[in-house]
């Protein structure tokens, strides 16, 4: 039986469909208390006084801690994991992010006090009894405004609210000259609006201190429990790592927002020791909107130059990236190393320069959200391509064919060196667009569109051909870029004496289906049944170490670590088999779970070898007992999935309402282990990318109040907002990892957004080339664009 390439049904689904999933909030510990966090209602204010006495006396309240207690305990703030230097080489501004604020709050939702009570309702009741006297200060929420002279300052040590400025690419003067010499220049001023990730499971954390063992346990909604443990122990609380177990049980979606180490995790751990009882904190959805790190939020000017034939001559990009009030774990990396480095796109653009100014504002932190930087890069590139095609009177598909990087496999041909630091591993870009055009029936569509226009119907088609950098990440490369961590992965393959296999992975599944996909890989490599394999993840006491799941890295990096350990198992197994079969190791072959002496019928099964390894009475001299191997895999490069997304929309000529009629996606994510799961990843990504284009957007008002603080105000796609998707794939294997996989988690979200917006622009061409219509494409905005002078 071969499992790789099969749509094996998921191992996880029995527990999830029957209500037996175990999420953090489902966990109940003996003696557990409940925490509620009192948060700032103001974007910027001085805390003049806090009176907790009445609340503390409320029946059922166990303890209340404020910022003063945190400061008195000497607890550090939550650190950023990446460092970016200013252009002049000085280090970025990294203001402290305290667990609770004692003096000056910096965004609505900033934590001020934690109330711990016997039950949650009591904790919330007591919150009403805390009196806080504020002196409200002026605030700033827009990054382009925040850098202007006289803008309210978020931090004392970050003049003009600038965290860093940064550039990448060819020398600016060369790019300026190339733009100036271009036959045509397309310029767009774009807002890539702020997004709320909104995993349906709200964040939750349970802290438990066991004084009999002097040991802490943290249950948390995390995409990477080990990283959370490292940051919390070494940088925030200063407690020894071996005395802390971090468990991320079933996690209900992440999309980036559960990568980061949040203040609540450290708070419940620290406070549980103070009160001697376990503490659970679970976010409400309103708190999630206020405090789960947001995504995107770029204000950008982008210019692309073309020669007479339509070949791109240069790209110049200038971006203000809003980081919010505090630096979240990955925040500095997103608008820089994950955005600027992707501006080559799929095109042979010879000159590229990108300039990023990262800015503090009085808003919630912004960090990685599905795609993280790559959607922002793709959005500006692909909007430029379709807009340029309209301006130059060219076909947008034709313009892309003219500019694609020629195919290269990364094995017999070298990788493609971009102008923005990265080297693409393998690519073959024309086929994805060709297949997309075939699926959409392009020629027919243009006829249908022309016909529809005659009847006053506004049909539009939009393209996006994207590339992303996944399989995050080669430690040496990201170290040079400023990561304060390597981004390898670990895996332990423990063969039990009976030949059953437990696999411990540092990746974490929160919907991706690792328990199925990883087991498929292991089963095939070992030639045993999937039922004989158990995938263990998410517990720092079981899994040696791990960097977790994000950046479409689980299979490319985590899967490769598993393969390394399997290779070690088979290598040792062969030594034992050679001994048992009285043959030379090189005369053995392994297939179907058996070692066979080539050309004979002498063979021995995997199970027998496993038992021999643990009961080594008849055993090769000098070989250790046991069959259990760990590996760390550090990739040599990122992986580079790519694809073509095409949207067809109809705009209601009367109301401006946009209806997404069809969505076609042809993605190349390298080799595929489980097509059903990969398709599911694409679908979900598409919905999020389309959501950004059509519906979603976080909004703050001038006072820094969050206007979109609930599902009543923030429009996420529902089932009847979306069509069924038409998807296909091409396969260009990754040349540098053993599975040839590239990663599929973010592709849908990266490619789809500009395709939808481009389609709306195309539908609106009877009104001219509209360049000032920003996402989301609400009826009001579209109607205004149609009726502007």
């Amino acid at each position, binding site marked *: 039986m071969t499992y790789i390439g099969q749509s094996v049904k998921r191992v996880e689904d029995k527990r999830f469909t029957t209500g037996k*999933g175990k999420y953090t909030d489902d966990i109940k510990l003996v003696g557990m208390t409940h925490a509620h966090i009192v948060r700032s209602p103001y974007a910027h204010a001085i805390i003049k006084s806090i009176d907790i006495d009445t609340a503390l006396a409320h029946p059922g309240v166990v303890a209340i801690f404020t910022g003063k207690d945190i400061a008195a305990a000497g607890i550090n703030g939550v650190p950023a994991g990446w460092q970016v230097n200013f252009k002049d080489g000085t280090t970025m501004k990294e203001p402290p992010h305290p667990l609770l604020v004692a003096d000056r709050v910096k965004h609505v939702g900033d934590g001020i006090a934690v109330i711990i009570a016997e039950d949650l309702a009591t904790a919330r009741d007591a919150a009403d009894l805390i009196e806080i006297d504020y002196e409200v200060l002026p605030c700033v929420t827009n990054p382009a405004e925040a850098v202007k002279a006289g803008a309210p300052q978020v931090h004392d040590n970050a003049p003009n609210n600038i965290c860093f400025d940064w550039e990448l690419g060819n020398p600016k003067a060369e790019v300026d000259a190339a733009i100036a010499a271009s036959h045509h220049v397309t310029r767009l001023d774009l807002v890539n609006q702020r997004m709320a990730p909104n995993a349906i499971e709200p964040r939750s954390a349970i802290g438990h201190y066991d004084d009999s063992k002097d040991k802490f346990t943290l249950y948390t909604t995390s995409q990477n429990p080990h990283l959370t443990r490292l940051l919390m122990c070494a940088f925030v609380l200063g407690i020894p790592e071996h005395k802390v177990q971090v468990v991320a049980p079933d996690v209900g979606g992440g999309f980036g927002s559960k990568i980061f180490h949040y203040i609540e995790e450290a708070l419940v751990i620290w406070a549980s020791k103070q009160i001697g009882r376990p503490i659970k904190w679970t976010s409400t*959805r309103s708190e999630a909107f206020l405090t789960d790190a947001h995504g995107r939020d770029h204000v950008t000017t982008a210019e692309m130059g073309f020669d007479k034939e339509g070949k791109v001559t240069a790209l110049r990009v200038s971006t203000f990236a809003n980081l919010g009030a505090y630096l979240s774990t990955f925040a500095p990396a997103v608008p820089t190393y994950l955005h600027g480095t992707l501006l080559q796109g799929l095109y042979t653009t010879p000159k590229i320069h990108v300039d990023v100014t990262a800015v503090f504002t009085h808003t919630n932190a912004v960090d990685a959200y599905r795609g993280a930087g790559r959607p922002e890069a793709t959005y500006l590139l692909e909007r430029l391509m379709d807009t340029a095609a309209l301006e130059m009177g060219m076909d947008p598909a034709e313009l892309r064919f003219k500019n694609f990087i020629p195919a290269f496999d990364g094995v017999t041909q070298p990788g493609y060196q971009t102008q923005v630091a990265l080297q693409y591993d393998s690519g073959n870009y024309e086929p994805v667009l060709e297949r997309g055009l075939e699926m959409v029936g392009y020629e027919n569509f243009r006829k249908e569109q022309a016909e529809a226009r005659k009847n006053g119907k506004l049909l539009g088609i939009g393209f996006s051909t994207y590339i992303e950098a996944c399989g995050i990440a080669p430690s040496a490369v990201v170290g040079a870029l400023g990561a304060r961590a390597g981004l390898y992965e670990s895996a332990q393959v423990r063969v039990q004496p009976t030949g059953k296999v437990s696999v411990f992975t540092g990746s974490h599944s929160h919907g991706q289906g690792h328990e199925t996909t990883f087991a498929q890989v292991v089963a095939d490599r070992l030639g045993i049944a999937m039922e004989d394999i158990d995938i263990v993840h998410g517990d720092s006491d079981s899994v040696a170490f791990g960097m977790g799941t994000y950046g479409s890295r689980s299979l490319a990096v985590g899967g490769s670590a598993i393969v390394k350990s399997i290779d070690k198992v088979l290598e040792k197994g062969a030594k034992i088999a050679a001994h048992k079969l009285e043959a030379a190791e090189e005369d053995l072959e392994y297939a179907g779970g058996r070692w066979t002496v080539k050309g004979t019928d002498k063979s021995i099964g995997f199970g027998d070898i496993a038992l021999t390894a643990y009961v080594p009475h008849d055993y090769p001299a000098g070989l250790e007992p046991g069959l259990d191997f760990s590996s760390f895999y550090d990739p040599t490069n990122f992986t580079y999935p790519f694809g073509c997304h095409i949207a067809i929309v109809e705009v209601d000529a009367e109301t401006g309402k946009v209806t997404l009629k069809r969505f076609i996606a042809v993605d190349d994510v390298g080799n595929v282990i489980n097509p059903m799961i990969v398709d599911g990843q694409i679908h979900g990504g598409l919905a999020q990318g389309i959501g950004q284009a059509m519906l979603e957007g976080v909004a703050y008002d001038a006072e820094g109040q969050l206007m979109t603080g609930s599902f009543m105000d923030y429009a996420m796609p529902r089932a009847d907002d979306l069509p069924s998707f038409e998807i296909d794939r091409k396969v260009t294997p990754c040349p540098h990892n053993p599975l040839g996989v590239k990663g599929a988690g973010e592709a849908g979200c990266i490619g789809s957004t500009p395709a939808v917006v481009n389609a709306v622009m195309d539908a609106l061409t009877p009104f001219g080339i509209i360049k000032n219509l920003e996402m989301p494409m609400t009826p009001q905005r579209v109607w205004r664009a149609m009726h502007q002078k």
Partner: protein
Amino acid sequence: MSVKISVSINGKKYTSEVEPRQLLVYHLREALALTGSHVGCDTSSCGACTVLVDGQAVKSCTTLAAQVDGCNVITVEGLAKNGNLHPIQEGFKEEHGLQCGFCTPGMIMAAADLLQNNPDPSETEIRHALEGNFCRCTGYHNIVRSIQWAANKLKETNAAVL
């Protein structure tokens, strides 16, 4: 102050004392350890807490425990019989209608409500019926197919939804 309620939950009778302000979802999760019904929002928008009360899908986060006194409540834990998945649960597995699983119980209960009233729904009808339930993972594509799979299975086996 507390209120005494007597409720049938997944076919079993429970008599409990509840706070008048206690929401049904917290009663199920905290008092009865039925943690399959999830809380994903505080505005009755996400549907992760959907259960059937006297056969009708309701959001247990906006229903008071006291309101279901004398009612028949079915939660996601009450669908599988004798260790066999219910056809809707099977459909979600067969058609990959779930990823992280957090919205899944609510989706399944909303689907149960739909299929009771409309055994042969079109794609449009299914999408309309799921308006009260958010999923952030699947893009709904495979949820639609899961419910179609379940509808076919129920038809083939001539089985009632409940």
